[in-house]
Structures are given as structure tokens and as C-alpha cells.
């Protein structure tokens, strides 16, 4: 008898923990919508990372995307990048540094309220292009900007 009661108590407590976990998820809705794409961030192939975060297909170079970054970055650990797109229906903006160990730096999922112009700061191992890939109305577009890095930002 007593044992059953214990089990029931335990089960109720477990259920309680689950409810708390579900509550925590409500605070961060996208953990339900889209899990963090671990494989994309761990991939050393840019094409693989791109297909995971942006979708399959070859991105088309577009003049409607601008990548703003300094021409010369003295410190590769902090490179300010602004990606702006004037394409209609922007869904995601992803930023890549092809020469980094893991080319994918950041990916942004935009709601229709957000103006497709995102500023962030990324690390660059050495002089390279910063490549932005924008998914708009289901299609992929790309643009890049060359940045000269005088001190790499990924070394140890």
C-alpha cells in the first residue's frame, strides 16, 4: 500500500517537473519552432551549413543585399557586420566566413515585422570575404564583402 503511494507521489512530482519545463519553453518560443541547428554550426563545409540554415539551392548573387563591414579589421575577434536586404519577403539572413573553422557565424530568422537589416559582430580567422545569404520568398540570394584582417580572431 505504502509503496504504491510512494510511486504515485514520485509520478506526480515528475509530472510537475514536466509542467515547469513546458512553462520554460513558453518563454522561449523558438526552441519549439526551430531547434538550434548544431550540425550547421559544427560543419566545416560552408555549403552544408548553408543548406541546413537557409535551405537547399545555389544562392544567386544579388545587388539588393549589402554587406557593410570595415575594409580593414585590425582585430579579427570583433568585426562589425551589417547585412541589409531590400528584397521582399525576407525569411532568414545568414552570415558566413568561409575561411573560419566553422564557416557559419550567425543566422537570423525574421518575422515580417522586422526590417531586413541586422547588425552584429563576428570573429574572423584571417583576411576573407564575409558572405551573407538571404532567403526571400523561398529563394536564396547572396552578397559578400572582402575584409582584410590584420590580427586573426580565432587563434589561441
Amino acid at each position, binding site marked *: 500500500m505504502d509503496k504504491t503511494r510512494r510511486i504515485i507521489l514520485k509520478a506526480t512530482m515528475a509530472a510537475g517537473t514536466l509542467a515547469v519545463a513546458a512553462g520554460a519553453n513558453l518563454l522561449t518560443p523558438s526552441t519549439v519552432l526551430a531547434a538550434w541547428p548544431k550540425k550547421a554550426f559544427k560543419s566545416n563545409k560552408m555549403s552544408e551549413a548553408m543548406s541546413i540554415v537557409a535551405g537547399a539551392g545555389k544562392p544567386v548573387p544579388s545587388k539588393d543585399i549589402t554587406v557593410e563591414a570595415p575594409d580593414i579589421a585590425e582585430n579579427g*575577434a570583433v568585426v562589425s557586420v551589417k547585412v541589409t536586404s531590400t528584397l521582399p519577403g525576407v525569411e532568414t539572413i545568414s552570415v558566413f566566413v568561409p575561411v573560419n573553422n566553422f564557416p557559419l557565424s550567425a543566422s537570423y530568422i525574421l518575422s515580417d515585422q522586422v526590417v531586413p537589416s541586422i547588425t*552584429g559582430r563576428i570573429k574572423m580567422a584571417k583576411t576573407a570575404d564575409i558572405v551573407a545569404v538571404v532567403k526571400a520568398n523561398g529563394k536564396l540570394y547572396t552578397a559578400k564583402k572582402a575584409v582584410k584582417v590584420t590580427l586573426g580572431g580565432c587563434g589561441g
Partner: protein
Amino acid sequence: MARKMKIRAWDNGKNISIKAIIFHPMETGMRKDKKTGKKIPGHYITEVNCEHNGKNILTCQWGPGVSKNPFLAFNFNGGKKGDTIKISWVDNQGGKGGASAKIS
């Protein structure tokens, strides 16, 4: 470790501007401790959610390639003064944090 962040949200006359900085080491996991020669474990923010009045407007998926103390700036439409902006983040070690601000 200090888990702090700063958010500013304001009406720029055309739409709403948001600027945020999160104080986080963003350790890549590739760096070595110069004294011991051991690798420093990766510690970086993986996901950031930006909410306007409780509705998710922007999700950032970040990796170790984002700079230390990450900075984020963007604009959005449909907000007004007094609305609440909430930004929350999680990292690869299970750490999390967040802050909210009113649009001014």
C-alpha cells in the same frame, strides 16, 4: 559569472530601433589556455529570442563565430512607445539570461 545584458529600444520616428549587448565570453572551444596548454571548453550563446509584447519577432541562431559580448541591432515595424521588448538567450552550457525594456 556576470550574466548581464543591456537593451535599448526607442522610436526613431519611422519605426522602432533596438540595440542590445549581452555580456558573455563566447568561448569557441578552439582556444588553448596559454599556461596549461589545455583547450578551453566552448561556451557560447546558441539562441537569442527577441519579443515584442510577448510575440517573437526575431530569432538569432549563433555559434562560436560570434564575437565576445555579442552586439545586436535591428529595426522593426508595428511597435509604439511604452511597448515591451524582451530579449532572452540560452548558451551551449545550459546558461540563460534575458532582459526587457520599454520602448522610449
